[in-house]
């Protein structure tokens, strides 16, 4: 009995395709997000607000931190603080807020950092922040994509298959990036 290669090609294309759906969606969304990194921050929503704290005269670092925390009604713990230059203090609150304050005028900013919902995690996977085992998982996914691309060429026979319109569409898909390469490189 002859080996039915097209049947197996289509079965593998279908099932590997199902497996690749999740990660393809994640990579595609993240790809768009990081493609525009010059225009926005794809990982975090950072909000900044000007603040004015009343700081008692000659207050030491501990007192400045206490007053700032109290006056801003911040309920998360203080992680640490830092003096970047005389007359300035930066107070770090666990995972969320950073206060930058002029200790003489009491004027400063409070910055709140929040991971973008889902997008941070999508970028985490797509840009391989994790490294370690995920590197190999992503390699397997890349090989799967390669297989899907090639096997996809042979799913259909006839006029709508590769030998029909498929070869022209495939050629356009290859020529397009080449044109951009010629123009921009």
């Amino acid at each position, binding site marked *: 009995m002859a080996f039915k290669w097209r049947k197996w090609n289509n079965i593998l294309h279908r099932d590997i395709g199902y497996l690749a759906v999740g990660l393809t969606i994640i990579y595609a969304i993240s790809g768009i997000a990081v493609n525009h990194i010059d225009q926005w921050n794809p990982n975090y929503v950072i909000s900044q607000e000007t603040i004015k704290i009343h700081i008692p005269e000659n207050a030491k670092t501990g007192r400045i931190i206490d007053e700032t925390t109290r006056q801003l009604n911040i309920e998360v713990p203080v992680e640490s603080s830092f003096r970047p230059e005389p007359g300035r203090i930066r107070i770090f609150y666990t995972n969320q807020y950073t206060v930058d304050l002029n200790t003489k005028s009491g004027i400063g900013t409070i910055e709140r*950092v929040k991971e973008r919902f889902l997008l941070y995690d999508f970028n985490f996977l797509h840009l391989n922040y994790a490294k370690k085992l995920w590197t190999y998982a992503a390699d397997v996914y890349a090989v799967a994509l390669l297989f899907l691309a090639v096997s996809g060429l042979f799913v259909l026979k006839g006029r709508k298959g590769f030998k029909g319109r498929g070869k022209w569409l495939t050629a356009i898909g290859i020529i397009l990036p080449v044109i951009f390469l010629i123009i921009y490189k």
Partner: protein
Amino acid sequence: MLNISKWLIIITVVFSATSLLAEEDGKVYGKGVTLEDTTQISDILATPDDYVGQRLMVKGRIVDVCKKRGCWMELAGDQEFQTLRIKVKDGEIVFPLQSRGKLALAEGVFEKIELSMEQTLQRMKHHAEEHGETFNAEEVKEPMTYYQLRGLGAVIFE
């Protein structure tokens, strides 16, 4: 025989437990740290040229992180008003922005960067944009030289 949903639950639990165990002693970035001794940031900044080209490990609080790419972080020195920048290759290590304020160990090669006038202007413009400050190119009179640790690995403690 276990069905697919049970397998998924088992895999999720095993992965979560493994990652919790791994993070007990701080989260490792890049190649982690391998040297046994730390060098004080104040010592390095006192005579930076003496350390150029050397592999060093430094310790300090993270006081700033690259907001978009996580490609650098600044560690506070052991003395007031001192910081040292740890710069890593884009994408090779990504420092999370939420790590500001946390304690970290970083290892890398200390380097001196001498910029041209054009590079200086670009760098200062980028810095101003990142910090929401105004930038006036006419105020820049001479090219910049700075020092940094070319980071190879780090450990950030919770």
